[in-house]
């Protein structure tokens, strides 16, 4: 049920039937690019809306819950404002790098979502080393942040960029290590296969304690890696105005903004894929009836349900925890998360060696 493979294949066959192979391939690529660009924009809009609402609920902010029906006009207003604002450029900035920075960030964010498996057969780029590729590409975004901070020729921006550089480089390790722990269990890096290994139970349930530890380590570290609160030091408003994107306005600012939200989605999607079974429905042991009902819900819905849950968790973190100081942040990574991760990795390796994993 609900297998997208045939649909995707029939589109491919149609294109190949109509055009010559080269043109068909090019068309396929264009189609994929367009779909993902649209997805990118929609995700951004939806997440901005959700963020506004959640934040408003948590902090009793009045505006976002009142504008339009259920606050929907707020997003429209946000988007209009960003589109219509004057693109201010700093006089003594390095123009080329200043304009390049938002694109690098967007490119990194966009590339990563191409690997996310939304449902069976609904994945643009299913390579053998999926997880490694995600870790690799998501580490490119930091270049954009560093460039943005430097080329703005502004001390707040520079400090923000330096902070984010230190932060991302450190927390990347924990993200990688916690995913590596899971790779020990799954035995593969390919995202579609990882999901298939969870047909008889999600890893967070059948992966014993290490999987649970790895889940929380991953969540913490990747929230830090995408610069979200409580780790949003690079753009700490109270000290750095707006951090590395202080000097950006209008659409260029929107690029940073969008990339941040899409990154949040990606993190949640990876967490879902690796720990929460991806698009696999929730099953409970031998309850055949219950399982059948669960199977009835489309996988893509399952996927987005799980992702929303994780995203809600992340927003919850952001709006309830106070922001860390930079030394606390680095101490947390190097003195607590990293050793814990390494211990967890060794522990999991022993478990796998003994054959106790699901």
């Amino acid at each position, binding site marked *: 049920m609900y297998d997208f493979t045939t649909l995707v294949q029939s589109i491919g066959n149609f294109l190949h039937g109509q055009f010559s192979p080269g043109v068909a391939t090019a068309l396929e690529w264009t189609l994929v690019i367009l779909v993902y660009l649209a997805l990118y924009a929609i995700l951004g809009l939806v997440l901005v809306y959700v963020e506004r609402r959640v934040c408003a609920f948590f902090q009793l902010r009045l505006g976002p819950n009142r504008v339009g029906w259920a606050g929907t006009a707020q997003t429209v207003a946000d988007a209009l404002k960003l589109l219509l604002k004057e693109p201010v450029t700093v006089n003594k900035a390095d123009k080329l790098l200043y304009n390049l920075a938002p694109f690098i960030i967007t490119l990194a964010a966009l590339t990563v979502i191409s690997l996310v498996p939304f449902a069976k057969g609904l994945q643009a780029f299913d390579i053998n080393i999926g997880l*490694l590729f995600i870790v*690799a590409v998501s580490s490119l975004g930091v270049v954009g942040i560093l460039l943005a901070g430097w080329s703005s020729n502004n001390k707040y921006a520079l400090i923000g960029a330096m902070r984010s550089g230190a932060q991302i480089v450190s927390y990347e390790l924990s993200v990688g290590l916690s995913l590596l722990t899971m790779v020990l269990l799954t035995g593969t890096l390919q995202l579609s296969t990882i999901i298939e290994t969870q047909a008889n139970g999600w890893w967070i349930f059948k992966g014993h304690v290490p999987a649970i530890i790895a889940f929380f380590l991953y969540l913490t570290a990747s929230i830090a890696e995408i610069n979200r609160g409580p780790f949003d030091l690079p753009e700490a408003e109270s000290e750095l105005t707006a951090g590395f994107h202080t000097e950006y306005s209008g659409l260029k600012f929107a690029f940073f903004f969008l990339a941040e939200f899409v990154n949040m989605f990606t993190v949640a999607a990876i967490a879902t894929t690796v720990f929460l079974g991806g698009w696999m429905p929730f099953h409970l042991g031998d309850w055949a009836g219950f399982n059948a009902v669960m199977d009835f819900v489309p996988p893509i819905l399952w996927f987005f349900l799980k992702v929303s849950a994780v995203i809600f968790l992340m927003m919850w973190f952001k709006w309830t925890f106070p922001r860390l100081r930079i030394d606390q942040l680095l101490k947390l990574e190097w003195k607590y998360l990293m050793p814990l991760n390494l211990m967890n990795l060794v522990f999991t390796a022993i478990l796998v060696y003994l054959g106790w994993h699901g």
Partner: protein
Amino acid sequence: MEKIIFYILSAVILSLSLMSVLSRKLLRSAVYLFGVLTAIAGFYFLIGYHFLGAVQLTVYAGGIVVLIIFSILLTHDIDHQMPTPDWSRVAVAGALCVAGAVMFVQLLQGSLFSRVEAPEQSDLNTVGNTLLNPGGGGYLLPFEVVSILLLAVMIGAIVIAKQRHSVDDSSPEKQAP
């Protein structure tokens, strides 16, 4: 199709590396280098060596270039430009480069590269098994030597960056009343 991509990537690599060498702004050079390294990763993906490509992205584009940019940020002076070299030096260097390139191309054209059988598939299992195989055709020893190399270099970096204070000042016995 693959050929077109190959030529596009090559053009990108060549032009960006030239720009990286010729640019007189430090950070721009680093950014062009970033482009070069990413494009090289593109080559690896093109020939289906996904693992190598991802490693190239992580280690070079995401790791080394970030370090380079980071260290340039520490010398924050946005107006800094390297001095323009003398035209005579440019001429000599250019002539040498062209001569070298001509000789090199000549040599490469004249000789056949011996073909090595590429592994059937370069998936992760093959990579892992080759990397950690102590027998013939395996690379366990270099793998371990590299880890020693990294340890040694790390010690070296730490010792250069270490704070200079005498042992007596920092020892807790002395600070205690």
